[in-house]
């Protein structure tokens, strides 16, 4: 009976059974992994945007600058010039910065809206004018991004010998007692070797495509190799190498060239004296990522590191993100404007969809005669639900904007288009809810003498209401996340002000996400992810409410 061939066949069948089952489990697992990957990716990218860095500085608010006539009028105080005040305050916090370029980089650390908080503080309490107060100044997005980490690593190597600087400011030479920079020179040569490896990879690609480019790379490699092969020859630093700095005598020197025993450099933060620095009192500091590969310069890193060491940098919750409209400056951009736009739009959508959708469903389910016309309506609704959303945008553009002349970028038009878009969903959901109410309810009402409309509106509709509400919330959630039709009707606008009415220029949350995702600044990428998180939370709450409603009020008959 149980021949070997039979056993083999059985085995094969069970194996294929196991395989089949594994495929199914694998498919589900892949889908789940994808969902988790999307959400994790967004959260990891977006979380940093909920915090931002500011400087907390002592600022002396002179009455002459802010409110010379002592009016104490908030309007006057708000209109004063804060730019100079902010700049001078920061320069006082990082003293001794020489040169126009260095000063410009220092000033550039501040956001253009750095003084907003100080301004509101003074406007709220004019008695602070004339005093020295602690105030918070918002940093620029690049500075903020650097402080959040990841831009470059900073390594510190304690100095071994005695270093003698030739001066305290400007271009100076550092002499060591013995070959104290030897290790650092080795590190520079190693960095050159790494660069050669990178160029070799480029070369392979260039050889396939562009012979001229390949030739140039070959020359560059030869030049670099010559430098690496002479281990004790001094190196000139450039922006493609890690930056080397020497911290000594309370100041900071950026090296422009380095040999085994001596180095030349530019003073970034002035030295207190030109005295010898003893072993252990000075460090060689390396910003490992080359200056050319990061958004923030050595000067800016040095300034920020000093401010951080002085305890003047504060990391705080990013309230601007929830209280401001859009801005060209990443650190000043917020989602309130687009959120308001979405709310206004959805109110229009709801005002159209709920009555029209429910009444249409009541008609089709309870009153419509069965004829070709109602058949057409039915087929039409089912197909309308599957029309691509961008086509609704075309409809809005051609009909609402071009034909009726309604304003572009207005929540009114967006709401109308989204209303038409989710109408089929709501009709279908409402019909299902009406159908779920058992006919006995209606028959009982008719039996005690109610008219058909009384039976439907007094008895069937109230019982179907939870189901209709669930469908409506899901439809609204769908409308909230819809982007494509909004692009067609000008909701892709740069809107700074928070819209207050249905005809103001506005954008919507998903449109804002799309706008930000297109911007090149790295800080906006985090903002985009953060805005997505807000959108997902809102959608999650809406869908959660719908599920809760269904569980709470659903009746099995």
């Amino acid at each position, binding site marked *: 009976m149980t021949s070997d061939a039979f056993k083999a066949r059985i085995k094969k069948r069970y194996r294929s059974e196991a395989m089949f089952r594994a495929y199914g489990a694998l498919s589900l697992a892949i889908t789940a992994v994808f969902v988790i990957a999307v959400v994790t990716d967004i959260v990891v990218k977006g979380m940093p945007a909920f915090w931002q860095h500011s400087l907390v500085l002592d600022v002396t608010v002179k009455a002459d600058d802010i409110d010379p006539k002592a009016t104490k009028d908030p309007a006057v105080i708000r209109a004063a010039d804060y730019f100079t005040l902010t700049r001078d305050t920061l320069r006082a916090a990082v003293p001794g910065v020489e040169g126009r370029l260095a000063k410009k980089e220092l000033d550039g650390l501040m956001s253009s809206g750095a003084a907003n908080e100080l301004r509101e503080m003074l406007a709220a309490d004019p008695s602070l004018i004339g005093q020295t107060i602690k105030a918070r100044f918002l940093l620029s997005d690049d500075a903020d991004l650097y402080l959040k980490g990841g831009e470059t690593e900073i390594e510190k190597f304690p100095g071994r010998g005695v270093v003698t600087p030739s001066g305290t400011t400007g271009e100076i030479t550092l002499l060591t007692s013995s070959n104290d920079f030897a290790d650092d020179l080795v590190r520079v040569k190693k960095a050159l070797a790494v660069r050669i490896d990178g160029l070799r990879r480029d070369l392979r690609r260039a050889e396939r495509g562009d012979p001229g480019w390949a030739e140039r790379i070959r020359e560059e490699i030869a030049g670099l190799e010559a430098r690496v092969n002479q281990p004790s020859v001094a190196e000139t630093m450039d922006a493609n190498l890690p930056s080397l700095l020497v911290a000594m005598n309370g100041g900071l020197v950026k090296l422009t060239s380095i040999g085994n025993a001596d180095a030349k450099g530019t003073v970034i933060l002035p030295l207190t004296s030109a005295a010898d620095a003893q072993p252990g009192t000075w460090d060689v500091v390396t910003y490992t990522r080359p200056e050319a590969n990061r958004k923030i310069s050595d000067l800016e890193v040095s300034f920020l590191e000093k401010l951080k060491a002085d305890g003047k940098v504060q990391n705080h919750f990013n309230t601007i993100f929830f209280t401001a409209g859009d801005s060209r400056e990443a650190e000043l951009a917020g989602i309130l404007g687009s959120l308001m736009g979405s709310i206004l739009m959805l109110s229009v959508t709801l005002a159209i969809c709920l009555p029209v959708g429910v009444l249409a469903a009541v*008609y089709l389910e309870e009153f419509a005669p069965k004829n070709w016309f109602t058949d057409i309506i039915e087929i039409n609704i089912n197909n309308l639900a*599957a029309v691509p959303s961008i086509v609704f945008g075309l*409809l809005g553009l051609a009909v609402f904007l071009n034909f009726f002349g309604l304003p572009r970028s207005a929540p009114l038009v967006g709401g109308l288009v989204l209303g038409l878009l989710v109408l089929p969903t709501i009709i279908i959901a409402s019909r299902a809810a009406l159908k779920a109410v058992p006919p006995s309810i209606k028959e009982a009402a008719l039996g005690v003498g109610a008219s058909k409309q009384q039976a439907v509106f007094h008895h069937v509709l109230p019982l179907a209401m939870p189901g209709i509400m669930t469908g409506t919330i899901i439809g609204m959630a769908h409308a909230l996340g819809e982007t494509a039709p909004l692009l067609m009707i000008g909701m892709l606008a740069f809107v700074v002000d928070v819209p207050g009415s249905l005809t103001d220029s506005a954008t919507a949350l998903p449109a804002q996400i799309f706008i930000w*995702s297109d911007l090149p600044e790295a800080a906006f990428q985090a903002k985009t992810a953060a805005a997505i998180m807000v959108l*997902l939370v809102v959608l999650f709450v809406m869908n959660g409410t719908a599920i809760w409603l269904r569980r709470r009020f659903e009746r099995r008959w």
Partner: protein
Amino acid sequence: MSLTYFGLMLLLLTAAFFVGRSRSYAVAGGRFADLHSLPVYHGLFVALGVFAPMVLIYMAGVPLVRYLAQDAALSFFPPDVLNDPLQRSVILRDVVRVAAGQFAGEPSATLKDAAAAAINTQNTGDMAIIFGGLAAGLAALIASFWQISLRFRARHWVERFVIIVLGVCAIVAVLTTIGIVFSVMFETYRFFFDPSLKGRPTVLEFLFGTEWNPQAAMRADQGDIKTAFGFIPLLTGTLLITFIAILVAGPLGVFSAIYLAEYASPRLRAVAKPVLEILAGIPTVVLGFFAALTVAPLIRSMGEYYGLDVASESALAAGLVMGMMIIPFISSLSDDVINAVPQSLRDGAYALGATKSETIRQVILPAAFAGIVSAFMLAISRAIGETMIVVMAAGLAANLTFNPLDAVTTITVQIKTILVGDQEFDSAKTLAAFALGFVLFFVTLMLNLIANRIAHKYREQYD
């Protein structure tokens, strides 16, 4: 003015309701059982009697008054100016601005007079509408008031009105479709056949052209760049991305559905279903962001590792993420049809000694085949019409290629690219977007109709 009118109307409606209701009480004189309709219906009847003429007067009066005001303003200008449509519209715009006090600079005397005349006519007309409406409303109130009697069938009238309102609501959906069809078809017609349109292609050039370059049509001085409205590269791009998406979503979606329907324990179902619903609920703009900033660079660096040239906006990235988007769509539709296969078929197969997977492959899938095919067609239609993922992750260049590592563009991307920003409705470029929209609408409609037809026609009937 509108606010005043509708405020007054609301007052009158409320008054009419109470007047009608109390009249029915009075008519009944305590014998409520003899009233044909409940007092509430008598009240509603009188209110509706007021509502209808007042709304009609408003809807007819407002455009009429606007027209008269325009006429009054234009009578100040010579006829030869008015015959030029451009100057006419400029004058009208200026008059509106002067009347609203928003005119930049000092308006001319004629403009001032015209604006004054327009305001005058407008005010008189508004008054006429308000008083006319009130008079008509009152007259209707009185007329319907006298209708009320013991045997008067107020409920029938009200219910007839309600049915009309319900029907109109149902027709809104049809109107939407008609609106889509007409707006898109009208512009498409102009795109192909409007003789005043420069650079318009013929239908054949559009359908079979292999070059797509609408940008060149923008300026006259770019004469030597050839404008081209060849649809083929967009079609191949769309199909390529759709193909990748279905290649991902098809097996994953169907296998997920099979596993959920046939193998999964109730506890796993309780977890897996919400996960799929979450995926279905993620807005496509979010998936687009993920595709453009995470998946595309990942594929690019992987390709580089294997020595492949991958475009930074490769079709593969967009297609993969779009496939993921469609999985819940296919799996939920397939889940439904698999669950609809009666248990007796499974029991029969088990009784013959088939294993579970054999039952699924040889009994359940054939029985559910039509439903699954229809699910695939709906998924294809969804993928073709999807916009945000491809806008963010696919390219703009209309390359005619089937290499998934190259950048391709799609119909929806081109519609979006052309129509974002200000448009003029008299350029071939803008109208080209509507022609693309028409193709998109037509193709997805056909796919849906066929899908529904397959699902209905080939559905196995049991019991």
